[in-house]
């Protein structure tokens, strides 16, 4: 009797100790992913809660990043062939289709030329591009972006409104249900509420020099234009589908999307671009992230008629909205948001 009591007490002390040191570790930095993680049930908001590139985050190579600080089991998501042949499996497959070809399978809610997997590679499986299986077990969570606790369905709705420049699909409709089923299925074996090994995009170190538009343009022409086009407009494949997605302009993500933040884009680019050979230096990733995000894109859906006011309310972060580039205020000439067919 007293022996098991001792074990319980010892166990609790151990858990509390680990939690305490973890929390201390995580709150060590400035206002970033880690801090929010420690103070709330779960972090992550599309709008730049990424560990990536917060101004004062230490170098990625030495510092414990969220991807290495904890030790959830590093399993693989189940193989595609394992989707069961039943009604649940049908819903999972529908979720996979929506994720991979959003314009076709959720056309009423997608307002640009992107698909979810353009940013979350391999149908949301790739560890370095905010994998779905790591997201699913971390909701409900507080999001600084809308300042309340979001469940997973609401998180998905946000993706449609911002990254997809579209409209929120109804929570109980097929689109959200299918994407939830797909995420749930991918997350098999992931511990609920425990910070996973891979979450968001990997950390990118601060650049040695402040990001520069001019250098970014050079990086862009040498490393990105081949696929994304001279004007970031993307390229169609021979069968007329979207081959390489647009980086700015009316077909891309809008001024409210997480990717418009220079730090978030720098982290994504460092980890994943150029496709198949991501070999930019940290400095180059930051420079080109600044460059692509210094062009017009669809308006912030929270726009209230004034770029300045919208900027003051919603853009106190590393973004270019409301800034003047080439004599033009970004946001003033933005194509409309939420343009679903």
């Amino acid at each position, binding site marked *: 009797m007293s022996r098991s009591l001792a074990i319980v007490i010892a166990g609790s002390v151990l858990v509390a100790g680990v939690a305490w040191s973890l929390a201390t570790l995580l709150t060590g930095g400035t206002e970033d992913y880690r801090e929010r993680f420690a103070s709330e049930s779960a972090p992550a908001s599309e709008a730049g809660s990424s560990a990536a590139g917060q101004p004062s985050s230490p170098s990625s190579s030495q510092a414990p990043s969220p991807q290495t600080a904890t030790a959830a089991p590093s399993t*693989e998501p189940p193989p595609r062939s394992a989707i069961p042949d039943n009604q649940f499996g049908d819903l999972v497959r529908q979720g996979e289709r929506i994720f991979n070809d959003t314009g076709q399978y959720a056309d009423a809610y997608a307002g640009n030329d992107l698909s979810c997997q353009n940013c979350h590679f391999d149908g949301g499986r790739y560890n370095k591009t905010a994998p779905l299986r790591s997201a699913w077990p971390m909701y409900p969570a507080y999001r600084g972006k809308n300042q309340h606790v979001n469940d997973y369905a609401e998180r998905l709705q946000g993706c449609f409104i911002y990254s997809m420049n579209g409209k929120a699909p109804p929570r109980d409709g097929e689109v959200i249900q299918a994407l939830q089923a797909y995420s749930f299925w991918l997350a098999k074996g992931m511990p609920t509420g425990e910070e996973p090994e891979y979450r968001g995009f990997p950390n990118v170190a601060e650049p040695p020099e402040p990001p520069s538009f001019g250098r970014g343009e050079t990086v862009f022409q040498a490393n990105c234009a081949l696929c994304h086009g001279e004007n970031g407009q993307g390229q169609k*494949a021979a*069968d007329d*589908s979207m*081959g390489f997605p647009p980086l700015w302009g009316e077909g891309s993500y809008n001024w409210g999307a997480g990717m418009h933040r220079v730090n978030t884009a720098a982290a994504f680019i460092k980890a994943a671009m150029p*496709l*198949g050979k991501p070999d930019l230096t940290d400095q180059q990733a930051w420079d080109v992230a600044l460059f692509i995000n210094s062009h017009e894109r669809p308006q912030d859906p929270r726009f209230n008629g004034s770029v300045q006011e919208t900027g003051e309310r919603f853009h106190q972060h590393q973004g270019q909205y409301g800034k003047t580039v080439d004599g033009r205020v970004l946001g003033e000439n933005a194509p409309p948001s939420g343009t679903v067919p």
Partner: protein
Amino acid sequence: MARLPVIVVLCLLFPSAYAQQNTANTAPPAAQSCVACHGAQGQGTGSYPHLAGLGEAYFKRQLDAFASGERVNAIMKPIASGLSEEQRQALAGYFSALAMQPGGGQAGEAPTGPGRELALHGRWQQDLPACVQCHGPGGLGIGADFPPIAGQPAGYLRNQLKAWRSGDRPAGPQGLMGHIAEQLDADDLKAVAEYFASLPAAKEANNE
């Protein structure tokens, strides 16, 4: 003196090229010497690759590379070396504007299995993208720089992948393709080459 027969032959060939193509895409004279191996409409013969529909920039780059010897090939080297800059450009423009006919190429039953998996999904656990991300859905190509690979002879495709690995072919724009090929092993090469060889080189509904 030798010029006369050539002119006569060319005069005879022009109308036939028009008859088949029925577009303003005039075959440059030099294209005649390609027919024996690459087919009258650039659709390929036997184990020789088809040329129709290859992107213009890609095509020109290959002729330059054959001529310089960077892309090692005993047959194409003398042919490419004998072409002037203008002729290469004209040939690239001509063949890139030709379309593969549906049912052309080496189409057959597409094998399932590892080749298909690599082609459609890549191997992202090892940071390897899917082939179709750069070569387009169905392997039909994207723009001027990412060549269609569907319906090319399996042996040809496999040789190219090997050539990158042995340094007999330049890595291509930004070194992208060379970097991909380096990460494939012999089984991958075989499986993925067979997969793309079996796909139709053109879509049924020709939306040219």
